[in-house]
């Protein structure tokens, strides 16, 4: 009984006299970017795995699958592109980008090194993701058409 009483008192002491909490991890500002980049890596890995699986288990020939493969290929390129942009933007110095209040005057400042040039070109990531999703739409339409023709 005495032991139980001492245990309860010790617990109450912790409850009423808290000090610095070390159990909860604090997430600082770069963590979000890292998580985002890791998500890109995860997405990339999943597409590579998918392509590997398709190589091991060939799927039937048809427009649907062809468009789907193209879509995933463009998503893969888009992921690599965006991952590269995220890395380059970390490496890019603050003064490399001039962003006055007027948005049309935003500039990538010289010297335009190959890194800065790559960053500039890579920022056109919609050139990858828009075709990717367009191919996905075409794939879905083809699958539906194939289904309809199969159903007779």
């Amino acid at each position: 009984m005495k032991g139980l009483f001492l245990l309860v008192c010790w617990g109450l002491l912790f409850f009423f006299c808290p000090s610095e909490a070390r159990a909860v991890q604090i997430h600082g500002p770069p963590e979000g970017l890292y998580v985002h980049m890791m998500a890109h890596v995860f997405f990339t890995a999943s597409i590579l795995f998918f392509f590997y699986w398709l190589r091991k288990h060939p799927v039937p020939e048809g427009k649907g699958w062809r468009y789907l493969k193209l879509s995933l290929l463009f998503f893969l390129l888009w992921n690599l592109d965006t991952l590269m942009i995220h890395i380059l933007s970390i490496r890019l110095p603050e003064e490399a980008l001039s962003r006055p209040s007027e948005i049309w005057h935003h500039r990538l400042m010289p010297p335009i090194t190959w890194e800065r040039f790559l960053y500039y070109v890579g920022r056109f990531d919609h050139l990858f993701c828009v075709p990717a999703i367009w191919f996905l739409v075409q794939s879905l339409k083809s699958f539906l058409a194939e289904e309809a023709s199969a159903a007779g």
Partner: protein
Amino acid sequence: MKALPLFPIYISDFVGSILMLVFSLQAYRWANKLRSSQPQNVLFMYLFGLSLALVALSVSRSAGHMLRFVFVYAGVPEWWHVMAPWSGGFNTMTFVAVGVLTFYYPNVRRALELVEEDARKLRQAHEELEKAHAELKELTRTLEERVRQRTHELIVSEQKFRRLFESSEDGVFFCDAHGRLSDINPSGVEMLGYKDKEEVIGRPMSEFFLDPEDWQLYYQRLMRDGYIKDFETRFKRADGSVIYVIISANAIECGRNGYGCEGLIKDITHFKKMTEKLIYSEKMASLGQLAAGIAHEINTPLGIILGYAQLLKEEFVGNKELVEELGIIENQALICRKIVSDLLSFARSSDPRPEKELLSVNDCIRHTVDMVRHTFEMDDIHIHLHLQEDLPPVFADQDRLNQVIVNLLNNSRDAIGHGGEIHIWTYFDETECLVTIEIGDTGSGIPPEVKDKIFDPFFTTKPPGQGTGLGLSVSYGIIEEHEGSIEVFSPPEEEKYKRLGIKTLFRIKLPVAF
């Protein structure tokens, strides 16, 4: 290089965001249609999830890119600073979602394939089970009918083979591994001289082989080759008589005991006798030709000797001594002429025109017997006649037929010696249209080793000077000339002859005159 403007990037982002939004919503629409068309299709489920995640991605990205411009132009850029982390976080989550879905699809697909494979196997097993069940059910339903049908077929088959077994003219036999007869058909039983099958069953087959060497040879060949074909041997019948047979048999497995046999026995005794008769007949024909040739050659010089002897006798009629000597020459020449005449009779060429006429065999026999009966009875030999009345006539030369009967009676008398019986039978064989004469005596019989030679010319068992050995040859020739046949049985096998004690029986068959 100069500074690079960022507005092309912003325009690209803006337009791209709108396009992303439009295409993602289209993708969602098509994916939803696909999923509705086939709710259980894993690929369509994946594509639906992918489209949904991409809609979320497009919304978050487009919101990010477009609202940034809106908020900046609206003069509240701080709003964008508040919203940006949320947009980015949501964006990250959509990547993860798309990645997870992409990772999971192949695995789910694989798992589903395994499940489908198992299901297919189960379905197949189920179908096979159902089929087996149906067959079993059908079998149960028709079992009685099938058993009945099979039994009927079996009975028919058994009857068929039983009929063949029972009615076969050849002997059919089965032997066990010890060489004992385990079954035999009625023909086989009869062939072996038994009346009942039970008398034969269980007896060693070797018992029936006359020559033990033949049995050894038969058994060795059968065991070595597994079969034996047309094995010719002699069988000993129950009454001791011998038959010629050919055996064809196969070895059969009798469980662990070894090998038995099954086969056919064919009685070829008749065929064998016919063959022997044919050979004998050929021999006699050759001898006849030889005898005729010799007789013709001798006849001419003999006639000259006889003629000159008679001429000289007439010329020297006064010289008594010379006439007596010439008489001896004449007598001896006459004896020679008689022998030549007999030889020609045997050769059937003594008289080119025999005086054949319709005559009664019975009358012929009575006439001949009446002539000799007295002489025979002096030797205590009694002749008994068993003549069938109303015999059809035969077309024959009476003198010659008498000569045959006299020859045979004399032969019997010589065989009996003193005290005995001679029986003469006549009967008509309707099936062959032949009149048969049988002359049997109770004499000493004919030894087997000379039986084949008794019709040969000049063959005799009598002491020299007591017979020429032409009697039976002449008889043979005369009967052959009448298109008949003469056979000898010593002793005859029929019971009626045995009862009378007949040791030798001559059987003459003559064709009926039409």
